[in-house]
């Protein structure tokens, strides 16, 4: 997940959560709508954290060319 994708997911989730909560208080929308916003935020953050924790395996290159034998 890239930073831009995280930004999109979290920002849109927060906006839906805020708008949904306000509309629910006004009795104009079901709570399910704000729950969708909250779920989006949680999902994006969870996926981002899981990908950060996962070790990235890269080929190890050992440079012996500068090693001197004493």
């Amino acid at each position: 997940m890239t930073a831009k994708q995280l930004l999109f997911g979290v920002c849109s989730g927060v906006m839906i959560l805020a708008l949904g909560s306000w509309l629910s208080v006004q009795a104009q929308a079901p709570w399910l709508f704000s729950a969708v916003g909250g779920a989006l935020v949680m999902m994006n953050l969870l996926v981002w954290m899981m990908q950060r924790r996962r070790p990235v395996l890269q080929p190890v290159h050992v440079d012996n060319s500068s090693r001197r034998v004493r």
Partner: protein
Amino acid sequence: VQLDIVVAFFVLGMAATLLRSRIDFPSGLYRSCTLFLLLAIGLKGGYALSQQADSAVLTQSIAVLLFGLLLPLLAFPLLRWFGGWSRVDAAATAAHYGSVSVGTYAVAVALLDAQGVAYEAYFPLFVALLEAPAIAVGLLLALRGGGKLEVGRLMHEICFNQGVLLLLGGLLIGAWAGDRVHSVLPFFGTLFHGVLALFLLEMGQKAAARIGDLRSQGAFLISFAVVMPLIGAAAGGALGVWLGLSVGGVALMAVLGGSASYIAVPAALAVSLPQANLSLALTASLAVTFPFNVMVGIPLYLALTQFWLG
């Protein structure tokens, strides 16, 4: 706003698949339900057109066509800039979200009818008009980077695919027949909700079957599939207000703006853009956007329209 009873059948279909208790729904019956719904919607719209055809409908139709060209242009930069998708995949998905879903429209009409909310009865004309422009825009966006297009085959697929043909055919028959439509309306009118319930039962199964694909497609796809319908619905609602539609009409325009195609566009793009990964768009529209619209979106669009205009 309460959910319509037909939505319960969608939930039942989803639950059946998630519980691994597959309902054996004959594929021929599903195709028959689709055919019935398209013809019924077209006939009702055509009959309404025969009763109130005037120059305002023509102006509205032109505006709706332009709206169909605009929607993929809203989705495309989101997919390219935030998602980092390739030009072809972004254009293909944008085309899906620029087009409309007749199933979503049918659920919205059922809800409006159940709640007694009036709307412009010639709306099926707009549904038919919104099917094709997004496909053309999606292809232009995809092929700007270079590529070959079989224009003849594509035009045939856009203009004469089953959905457009049956919807427009029903419209023309309804408009031509006028009051004679009443001889077939007992069949197409009375059975509409029952057939829609059967259609949604199978759609629930299809949506649940695609949920597994979401794991591999990532969080961005799910976020986009929830956010884009809201953007499209806001644009559609604004267009409805600008066109001076009734409360039900504005809500329906929001539904059309917020829905995503899962039948006509994949069929057309499979022909004209074979290099695109269509499973991305199909998973998003079928497994996320359709359930979101049916369970959350449609009641929300109607409630907000009534809140601001009612």
